[in-house]
């Protein structure tokens, strides 16, 4: 019992390390983020920085040790944060007022929590209690966790490096999740594949906190934002399952929300200043989480470009040029691993496109429709999102809501096309569909929650986002 408590303490320290690194980075990049937003974005960005650093260490031929993995990224972000704090303090001293008043906007006194707030908070608390218990009580058992993510994490920890010699476990897949788990094994001092799963409910909580923050930024009240967040979390088993099965799709979903959600806030003018650099790092996380990350990132960029070209806001050219931030982020997440793979002779597997199979397209089309209305997988999330888009249909072509519609619609189309060209045998195709569709829809699901938030705002107030114009914020 004491040993378990000690292990848990070490694990908590490891998780705190991730959050501290990420929070310092977010505070340095975007000081106007609220504490909740900093913690939510900080978790993912901390994981990104630490795992990219572990990749660098492996590239340099250094063996993973806890001080070597932890201290340099911590020192770097602390230095950046401290340097900025110091320069702001100097600036404010010269100007003759306190740095605090310069940095922090005046916030009104908090509204007391209402009944509905407590209902939603209680539901989320029960949800996390169950998900956390389910995660830490059972060792890794799900197929991809045993075959790929958890296996790689064990190998990287035992080898002290990204060493893929002697096995084939989709070696070309990006390694954010395995390296994050290896980093926690370093803290634990052993391979403990049930306690380590605590990271996944925490990651899910960060995702929900990020979603809640975005909904608030879009103008929803606290109760509404909590309601939509709860609605997303507790609709169907897909999201909750990914809080304990140790797949990389939770990371993908988190970074997809960060990348697309922050871009959407930026398009609506609701984003705090300097949101784009944070969004850029989410693009990096997207590319470093899964092989499907870069294509998804490209669809976000494409939707943003099309939205700007269609709406033609003031300073369209400057805004289009600002998208260089996410492009840079995408390259940051994609190139280091590609360079490592090339230099270490890791072959990039690819599903060779041999042809366009109409029969697969015709099978995928109803499967996608069924997936969207599958009560077990996503509850009523997708039909509600469709309803919200219908409710705000007049605003789609005159507001940044177009971005969300393009992103979701474009990705549904991309899914169908991907299934149409997938090189699977006819008797395997339905299994392939069944095994992948819920995961692919999960990547997009938080954006459906943003659509629902916009629809709710439209229904409750009669107006949605700033119509016909895109405000300047970054």
């Amino acid at each position: 019992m004491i040993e378990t408590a000690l292990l848990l303490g070490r694990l908590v320290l490891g998780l705190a390390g991730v959050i501290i690194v990420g929070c310092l980075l977010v505070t340095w990049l975007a000081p106007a983020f609220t504490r909740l937003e900093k913690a939510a974005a900080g978790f993912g960005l901390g994981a990104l920085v630490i795992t990219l650093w572990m990749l660098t260490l492996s590239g340099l031929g250094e063996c993973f040790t806890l001080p070597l993995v932890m201290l340099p990224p911590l020192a770097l972000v602390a230095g950046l944060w401290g340097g900025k704090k110091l320069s702001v303090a100097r600036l404010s001293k010269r100007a003759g007022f306190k740095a605090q008043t310069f940095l922090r906007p005046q916030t009104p006194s908090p509204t007391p929590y209402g009944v509905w707030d407590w209902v939603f908070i209680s539901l989320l608390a029960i949800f996390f209690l169950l998900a956390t218990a389910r995660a830490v009580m059972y060792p890794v058992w799900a197929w991809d966790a045993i075959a790929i993510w958890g296996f790689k994490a064990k190998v990287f920890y035992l080898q002290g490096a990204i060493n893929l010699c002697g096995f084939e476990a989709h070696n070309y897949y990006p390694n954010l999740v395995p390296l994050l788990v290896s980093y926690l094994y370093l803290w634990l001092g052993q391979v403990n594949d049930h306690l380590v799963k605590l990271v996944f409910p925490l990651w899910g909580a960060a995702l929900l906190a990020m979603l809640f923050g975005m909904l608030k930024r879009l103008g929803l009240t606290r109760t509404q934002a909590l309601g939509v967040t709860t609605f997303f979390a507790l609709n169907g088993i897909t999201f909750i399952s990914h809080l304990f099965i140790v797949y990389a799709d939770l990371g993908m979903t988190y970074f997809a929300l960060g990348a697309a959600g922050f871009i959407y806030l930026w398009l609506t003018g609701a984003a705090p200043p300097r949101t784009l650099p944070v969004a850029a790092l989410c693009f990096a996380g997207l590319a470093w989480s899964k092989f499907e990350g870069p294509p998804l990132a490209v669809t976000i960029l494409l939707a943003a470009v099309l939205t700007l070209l269609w709406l033609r806001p003031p300073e369209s050219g400057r805004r289009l040029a600002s998208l260089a931030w996410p492009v840079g982020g995408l390259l940051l997440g994609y190139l280091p691993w590609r360079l490592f793979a090339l230099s270490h002779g890791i072959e990039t597997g690819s599903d060779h496109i041999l042809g366009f199979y109409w029969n697969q397209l015709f099978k995928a089309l109803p499967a996608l429709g069924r997936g969207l209305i599958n009560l077990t997988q996503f509850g009523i999330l997708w039909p509600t999102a469709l309803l919200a888009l219908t409710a705000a249909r007049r605003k789609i072509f005159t507001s940044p809501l177009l971005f969300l519609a393009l992103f979701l619609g474009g990705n549904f189309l991309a899914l169908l096309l991907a299934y149409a060209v997938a090189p699977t045998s006819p008797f395997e195709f339905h299994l392939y569909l069944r095994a992948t569709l819920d995961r692919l829809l999960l990547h997009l699901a938080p954006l459906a929650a943003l659509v629902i938030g916009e629809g709710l705002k439209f229904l409750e107030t009669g107006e949605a986002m700033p119509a016909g114009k895109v405000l300047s914020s970054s």
Partner: protein
Amino acid sequence: MEKQPSQARDTSCLTRIPPRPHWLVRLILLLFVLQLGWLTWQFRKDISDMAQRGWSHRWGTAVREEDPFYQWIAEMGRNTPPGVTYIFLDNYEAGKEVEARYHLYPRQHLLLLPEAPPSLLFYTIRQNNVTYIFDRDAKRPPGPGLQAALALGAAQPLNLPGPGRAYRVNPKLITGGFYD
């Protein structure tokens, strides 16, 4: 900084009763509540199992140790040095091969079908200096490759009870010149 609309609305809640939600919102909330019931039903077995395990302190590694396949694999892990190479005879779709690889790492893992012919099995043994063969299913008869290895004396059954069969292999006894 521009005042957020949400802040304005939050403050207004103090002074007036919030308006009744739109009928569509109420309908969706009702459907959501019904869906929550369905979700709880979906997880009923997990909740019950977690409660029992929490009560009896049978969680973590104890969960894995209830699985006969894991017990067998763990026994093989205890009886084989970490540096060896083994062949696991199974079909990938059964999902047990990935478990064996996970638990037996850092031992070098090679997968062959149980029906592997002698030529393929012998080539793999020779090429990779294989010293163990693990067949996942003890109930099925040995495939042609394994039968040939047994007949040659290159594979010797190990007494490790479990759902599968384990063999010690001497690659030096496979001298080549064997054709299917």
